[in-house]
């Protein structure tokens, strides 16, 4: 997602992907595979891109095109990742000023409300798909999210 006034959700690998793309041009290689920690990124030129779409953006270079990642690419495939089932606005607490539904480190039970996504004035509760510990919260209160956006990681 690229939207104007609001900040898009964090995309940890975007910069790395861009550097690899640049490296690809520089070296004239047709493909670079890069693995480090949990991440594995393969960039290929003029062709299909496995892990992310960013390098493929190059062909549409001249137009101002901030990276658009396919929903799900920003870690959403990770087991235990809770992703957004809709487009809307995230609320981490029931009311402004009230404590958030969950904090990092909390243990949650399956079905427990993690956050709310407002879409068309409807407040949709997003529930934990399984019991576990809240390892990461990837959105901030009032963030706009698109379909498939990574919300929280439950371990």
């Amino acid at each position, binding site marked *: *997602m690229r939207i104007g006034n*609001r900040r898009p959700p964090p995309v940890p690998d975007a910069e790395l992907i861009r550097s690899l793309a640049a490296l690809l041009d520089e070296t004239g290689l047709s493909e670079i595979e890069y693995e480090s920690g949990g991440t594995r990124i393969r960039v290929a030129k003029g062709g299909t891109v496995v892990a992310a779409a960013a390098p493929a953006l190059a062909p549409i270079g001249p137009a101002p095109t901030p990276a658009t990642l396919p929903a799900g690419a920003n870690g959403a495939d990770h087991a235990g990742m809770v992703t957004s089932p809709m487009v809307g606005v995230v609320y981490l607490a029931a009311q402004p000023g009230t404590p958030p539904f969950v904090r990092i480190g909390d243990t949650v039970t399956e079905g427990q409300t993690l956050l709310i996504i407002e879409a068309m004035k409807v407040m949709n509760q997003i529930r934990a798909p399984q019991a576990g510990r809240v390892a990461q919260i990837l959105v901030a209160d009032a963030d706009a999210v698109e*379909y*498939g956006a990574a919300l929280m990681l439950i371990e």
Partner: protein
Amino acid sequence: MFEKILIANRGEIALRIHRACREMGIKTVAVHSTADSTAMNVRLADESVCIGPPPARASYLNVASILSAAAITGADAIHPGLGFLSENAEFARLVEEHGFTWIGPSPEHIALMGDKVRAKEEARRLGIPTVPGSPEAVATLDAAIEAARLVGYPVLLKAAAGGGGRGMKLAHNEAQLAEALPLAQAEAKAAFSDDTVYLERYLERPRHIEVQLIGDGDGGVIHLGERDCSLQRSHQKLLEETPSPALTPASRQRLQTIAVNALKKLGYKSTGTMEFLYQDGEFYFIEMNTRLQVEHPISEMISGVDIVREQIRIAAGEPLNIAQSDIRLSGHAIECRINAESPDDFRPSPGRISEYHAPGGLGIRVDSAVYQGYSVPPYYDSLIAKLVIYGANREECLMRLSRALGEYVIGGIETTLPLHQRLVDDPGFRRGDYHIHWLDEFLARPR
């Protein structure tokens, strides 16, 4: 004028609308399914929002996601493009309810023309000729014979409850009608447990002729001439041209007058198209499309009018700033639909485009959102490019089309390019001597 428009569509038409916005200084929001994340219209848009998974019902038909996307991006207006939600009156109503401007005609006009039976009644009310038929059901042979006499042979018996060809019977004369009536009634009874049938004139070799119209809802109505869309494969348009090689100046004049007057009476506000069957010098209304059409570019080529720009201007409440007298229809234009499908059996051929090179030079326009390295997803319509050719006259246009087809390179998938090359080489097509069944016959010919 709008500051930001959300384009609720995909592919070449989404890009077409994006381009019009850019040229008007309007920001664009692209919405897309996960399958279209790297599409060109998404990359070129100022903002983009993923609205759902690949299946259209979960993304491009997902009203809640689209309206939410408009809300979070702060769009002023929503352009539905064509197909998907473009003729969904309920969606148009919701868009307005949520405080966005709908770039299209009023929900009432969409609903009216969406109901094919009401649309025909309205057409008659507006003085538009329709296919002559029996006013009501023909229960007895005498009634059928009498109705057929008035309508004129050949006639087609149709089940009133019907559709899908069941209960349909063709009769060229009284004898055949006598045989056909009981059969039609029996089939209708079996299919719809209702043996009511009516009859209408059957057109054997009609052309499909449509008129491009723009109304500002304020008395301003212009037409941009007709389009001949008779080249259809099982009701799918493949190649369109304007002007029609079949119309005389007089019949053209008559058609334009009928359509413009009707649109004025209707108080229609947006772009729209009236479709007619044309045979033996007579026009018969089929339906009206209350949206932009795939083949709109050929009308732009001969009129110099940017149809999408006018559609947006009118939605923003501006009146038409072109009078019919300002419009000079000149030259000839042809559109070839380049589909990602086999040119022989029309099997869809999605996949990665390994080579792409579009033709260029004088008189060539290509509307396409594909590029070398792009993968055509299997989930949607197979149209990937529109090759639009302009020439000072039909012959020049055909010569240019032939050379452009020779330059067009789309590798890695099958496309309809070879079929278009066969068409442009065909003497019958070159003579302009075809009708709505012609292409199916052409394809059935041994090669």
